[in-house]
């Protein structure tokens, strides 16, 4: 087990190194010369050359990659071209709304999707099953911003139940925080719910065929206990795997959701950075999101033994 954990952790290192290399190359081949920008219009070619040398921009690709990676590992992601603030500071300022949105979406999606999938599998072939599957197809097809605008129009503009846009920090109370986030979370969760519900149903259908389910039924276990204890526990591994992989959908969707609902998070930061071609910021955000994604999936892989004690390494 311990050897497996070590091996699995070590496996993520080349993956992250590749991501880092890719993200670095993004800045490397990006148009525009930072040295010329810093030197200004009045600079002579010699000045630009001096600044280039002082920034280390005249050194070979791999050397620059090494320096850059070393700085990243020490928590230095460079400076924004546009605001001159360190990228880490800018990310720190914007991380709370995005984390809140993604956490709420995750909880909401799992609470909705898993029971949906379980019930659909239990009532296979009935109207309920068809409704769940129909919903799943819709969830895959209606893009996140379409759901977002629809929800905002109905519940915020027409019914006036919830605020249209914006974000309130969790430090101002849970209720205002929730009021602002519930619509974005539902909008963002659409695809995710569809994905989890589908895999839950598929896995449950398989598990419900097993002998131990018949045994549980024979010994008189209640329907609820059979579905949610005996069956769901055994269906957990694929479901949890998909929840982990689906984080990628959440990250991509958060960028758009934050634009629709004017939430000042990392997604907005990304969009602003792209419009301004602020490469260090784009680089930082892509690197951070990828790191989180890899980390979550690593933790899920390591957690398999908790869900299924049969898995031994």
């Amino acid at each position, binding site marked *: 087990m311990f050897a497996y954990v070590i091996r699995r952790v070590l496996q993520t290192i*080349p*993956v*992250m*190194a*590749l*991501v880092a*290399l*890719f*993200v670095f190359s*993004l800045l490397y*081949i*990006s*148009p525009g010369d930072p040295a010329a920008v810093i030197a200004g219009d009045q600079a002579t070619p010699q000045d630009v050359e001096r600044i280039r040398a002082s920034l280390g921009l005249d050194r070979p690709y791999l050397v620059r990659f090494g320096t850059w990676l070393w700085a990243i590992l020490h928590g230095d992601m460079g400076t924004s071209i546009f605001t001159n603030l360190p990228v880490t500071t800018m990310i720190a300022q914007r991380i709370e709304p995005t984390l809140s949105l993604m956490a709420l979406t995750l909880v909401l999606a799992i609470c909705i999707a898993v029971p949906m999938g379980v019930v659909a599998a239990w009532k296979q072939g009935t109207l309920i099953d068809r409704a769940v599957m129909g919903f799943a*197809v*819709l969830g*895959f*097809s*209606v*893009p*996140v*911003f*379409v759901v977002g*605008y*629809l929800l905002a*129009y109905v519940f915020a*503009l027409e019914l006036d139940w919830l605020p*249209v846009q914006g974000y309130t920090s969790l430090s101002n109370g849970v209720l205002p925080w929730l009021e602002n986030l519930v619509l974005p979370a539902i909008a963002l969760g659409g695809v995710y719910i569809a994905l989890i519900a*589908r895999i839950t*149903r*598929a896995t449950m*259908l*398989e598990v419900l065929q097993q002998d131990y389910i018949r045994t549980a039924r024979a010994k008189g276990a209640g329907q609820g206990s059979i579905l949610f204890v005996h069956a769901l526990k055994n269906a957990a591994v694929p479901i949890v795997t998909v929840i982990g992989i689906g*984080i*990628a*959908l959440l*990250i*991509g*969707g958060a*960028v*758009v959701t934050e*634009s*629709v609902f004017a939430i000042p998070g990392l997604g907005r930061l*990304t*969009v602003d*950075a*792209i*419009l301004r*071609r602020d*490469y260090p910021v*784009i680089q930082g*955000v*892509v690197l951070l*999101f*990828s790191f989180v*994604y*890899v980390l979550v999936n690593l933790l899920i892989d390591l957690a398999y033994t908790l869900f299924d004690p049969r898995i031994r390494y």
Partner: protein
Amino acid sequence: MASASVLSPIEAAPPSGVAAAAPLPDVLPPVKPKKGFIGFVRRNPTMAFGAALLLLMVLVAIFAPLLGTVDPTALAPAKRTREPSALYWFGTDMLGRDVYSRVLYGARVSLIVGFSVAILASVAGMAIGMVSGYVRLLDSVIMRVMDGLMSIPPILLAIALMALTRGSVQNVIIAITIAEIPRVSRLVRGVVLSLREQPYVEAAVAAGTRTPAIILRHILPNTLAPITVQATYICAAAMITEAILSFIGAGTPPIIPSWGNIMAEGRALWQVKPYIVFFPAVFLSITVLAVNLLGDGLRDALDPRMAKRL
């Protein structure tokens, strides 16, 4: 029908007071699968519905100039933000452009991006997956690179690539294709690895068939079914990604009317003039739905064992 009475002696003496049911024919009429178009639609309603819807959208895109549209880029500042009416079916935007014409022409961008990415990503993914599944030496290198690319969420990867280049339809297609290739490659590699273990491939090897011939005649045809299904899902994902890229200003240039661009332009006004966002949103959703239904139908038709499950 002598055999019938032998097999079912009960029917000979119905209890009094109970109406006797008409005797069942001893042999059920053979199930004749209907041939032709009607039969196909009956057997694959999902696929047929999705295909019909998609075809309709393709026709709309091709014949956009003939469907009562005007120049989608023509400005008319005097007639801006008109509500939908008999004259302006979907209203006009803040520059006075006809939203109906823009939405119809926008179908072109979405469909071109969707189809191009599906084809390009499938072909590239197939080549990479095939090499990876057959050349063990390159396999681990290729798969590690794919792992690296896959750990960047696809939309983010596309955004990062678009930040490097000018916005153009061509660049959007390339960026989304690169973001989708790793998943196809993985799929193809998996299929190739399992096909190599199949008895008929082993038989071909034993019979002295050359490797290129095995790949071409035995492996390639069997990867087509899963790839086709995957390609439809890629097409749907690409259309959504294109809309997202355009919506956040990193996609198709604003001059070209695409659904994402129309929505991006309507964004500032959506609380007062929601129709500018509404119509492209509906068209995008319907088109993606059509492609997804087509994909689900194809999957069920090509792999009936999976059909019951998913």
